[in-house]
């Protein structure tokens, strides 16, 4: 460490292109070894969990330990189905972006469990403040897939009237808050929302998701301060997918042991969770939601996962990390792990899986055709031009009325 003299220090990622990636340096306790405290336990009882790892599925894909949420096969199959759909949807949308059908896209490949399992562990009326890689929540909550596509291609049926970049969804009916492109802003907003639910005496919680890089934003620290001060019924998720575009997680983590451990300093119950383990994500979210509903306040959950694809359609990950890195990620693939778990239980098989994949592929292809029938960003029709002057205020003032006239719409 110290050689007795201060030195300017900038961390570098463990591997860059050309290196042989090896994750053996990670401290990843085995599935089933983490203890599960009572939901209203003191945050101090989560200290080991914040630096350890909550996992349920072991290397044989069996559910082990105190955190096993003991979910029904039906629910597990439903989870698998949402994850498969999310992955197929992402792949199709990427292809369409490459064909020039949309301006931009962001996949959640490798992180499907983070969104899907959490959404299924929450209640439909719990409010979510997602960032742009949680489209799985929408599938889990039953969002119409054609509507999602219509948003992404900003056509005449886009429920956001063509105002947001693709994947920046908003769906009030599904309690899915509008996504911001400014990172971290929704974290303290979720706390305010949760406080309002508590103020109104509602049995609801709020949940939010940000990336590992975004923990460097002031809003992360503001959210934790508010959540701790007011014991807000909120679940604050840090999706540590290892990479903030090309910056390794250590650019935000510094010398802290884990992102979850940062919550301990605020007196917030904090868990690091295997984010590629559907059962662990479900169990942790369920625990945090129960804690919040019972008045125990906030939980910070670090979802330890790996972004298996590019950050967005605007970057090429092979330029900043080894091409083989995703393949050697020690926590595996969330879809494959849940699939094998179900197969091991005799509740699933390869034939049924193939049928599911085929059905979802058909659904996505068919849905896109339908979406395109409402127009595309490239060729229209779009939302009416005059809609650009709507929703700025509850009622437009003279400036907007005149400017609309100036545009002649």
């Amino acid at each position, binding site marked *: 460490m110290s050689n007795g003299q201060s030195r300017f220090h900038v961390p570098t990622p463990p591997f860059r292109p050309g290196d042989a990636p090896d994750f053996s340096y990670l401290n990843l306790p085995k599935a089933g070894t983490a203890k599960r405290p009572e939901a209203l336990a003191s945050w101090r009882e989560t200290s080991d969990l914040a630096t350890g790892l909550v996992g349920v599925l072991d290397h044989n894909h069996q559910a082990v330990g105190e955190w096993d949420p003991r979910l029904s096969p039906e629910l597990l199959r439903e989870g698998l189905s949402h994850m498969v759909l999310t992955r197929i949807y992402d792949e199709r949308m990427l292809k369409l972006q490459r064909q020039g059908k949309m301006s931009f896209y962001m996949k959640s490949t490798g992180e499907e469990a983070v969104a899907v399992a959490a959404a299924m562990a929450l209640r439909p009326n719990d409010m979510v403040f997602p960032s742009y890689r949680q489209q799985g929540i929408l599938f889990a909550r039953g969002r119409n897939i054609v509507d999602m596509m219509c948003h992404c291609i900003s056509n005449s049926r886009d429920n956001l009237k063509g105002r947001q970049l693709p994947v920046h969804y908003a769906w009030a009916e599904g309690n899915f808050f509008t996504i911001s492109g400014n990172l971290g802003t929704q974290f303290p907003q979720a706390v305010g929302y*949760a406080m309002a639910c508590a103020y109104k005496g509602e049995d609801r919680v709020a949940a939010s998701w940000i990336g590992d890089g975004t923990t460097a934003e002031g809003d992360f620290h503001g*959210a934790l301060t*508010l959540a701790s001060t007011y014991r807000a019924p909120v679940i604050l998720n840090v999706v540590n997918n290892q990479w903030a575009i090309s910056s390794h997680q250590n650019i935000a983590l510094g010398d802290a042991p884990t992102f979850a451990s940062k919550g301990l300093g605020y007196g917030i119950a904090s868990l690091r969770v295997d984010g590629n383990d559907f059962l662990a994500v479900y169990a942790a979210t369920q625990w945090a939601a129960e804690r919040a509903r019972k008045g125990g306040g906030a939980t910070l959950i670090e979802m330890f996962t790996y972004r298996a694809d590019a950050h967005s359609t605007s970057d090429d990950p092979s330029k900043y990390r080894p091409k083989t890195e995703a393949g050697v990620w020690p926590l595996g693939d969330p879809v494959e792990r849940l699939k094998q778990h179900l197969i091991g239980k005799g509740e699933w098989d390869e034939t049924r899986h193939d049928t599911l994949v085929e059905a979802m592929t058909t659904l996505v292809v068919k849905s896109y055709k339908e979406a395109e029938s409402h127009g595309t960003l490239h060729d229209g029709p779009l939302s009416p031009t005059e809609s650009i002057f709507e929703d700025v205020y509850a009622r437009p*003032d003279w400036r907007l009325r005149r400017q609309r006239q100036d545009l002649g719409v």
Partner: protein
Amino acid sequence: MPAMNIIQALNSAMDVLLDTDPDVIIFGEDAGYFGGVFKATDGLQAKYGLDRVFDAPINEAAIAAMAIGMAARGLKPIAEIQFADYIFPAIDQIVSEMSRIRYRSAGQFTAGCVMRSPWGGGIRGGQTHSMSPEAFFTHVPGLQVVVPSNPYDAKGLLIAAVESGDPVIFFEPKRIYNGPYDGVPDKPLASWARHPKGEVPEGRYTVELGKAEVVREGSACTLITYGTLVHVAEAAAEHSGLDVEIIDLKSLVPYDIETIAASVNKTGRVVVAQEAPRTSGFAAELAAQIQEECFYALEAPIFRLTGWDTPYPHAHEWAYFPTRDRMIRALKTVTEA
């Protein structure tokens, strides 16, 4: 009707709002038990309880974000930013989020809340307690910006702001918060000194957002301003002996172009005055718009009377802002042109 100064009128507004609407909730640094550093929320926590009026951590961005989240769940938050100078840490939450949640969600979500903040100089506050940052916020679609100049308007505008359903940046001229002495006992403002307190009704009433008021009628020149300078303008009009028409804007976004245009078309001469620095200030917007609307009625160039393009000084604050005498010189320049 009782006589109140601006602080008392704001307190009365919040009292009425808390009393009549359970969705109203108030918070800010020192806004709870202590009642705010200027006492605007004095006594409200004792009267309405800790869950209606409470202290917030020193994190303006978090205060603004909390207001957004609460508003999204249907509350009507009134958040206090202790000094307008401190609003900048919250700028991303206000400019990128609060202002456009209605727009970017196509009306599915709204963030109707009020950010109150003591504004402007004149209390020996130095460069971190004296700023007038209104122009920054007038540039942001989706925000409304309000600056009252007297107790009656302060109460009526604040109630209207809370009930508007849209985010409102509510700047309070702290130099005239408490009435007669303009913060500095040896430099009274003549008109304000005669009207230390205004008549303010006890109960609920509103003053329309976006509506200006002709506070002094005249035919020689139109003097347009807002907040503290309305009183400086009255003193200047009186001492100049000129027949000056004074418009108190009250709302900067939206501003009342009809009242402005009617007056300028009548007088043909304009002084626009603000305490903030000159470049890209709100006076520039007014001058540009008046030029577009009333060019053929103008008989002299529009005069911008402003603070200087410097940070706000401590020792020389009376040399910084537009004083009565500078305003008189401006009026003479314009009327003699």
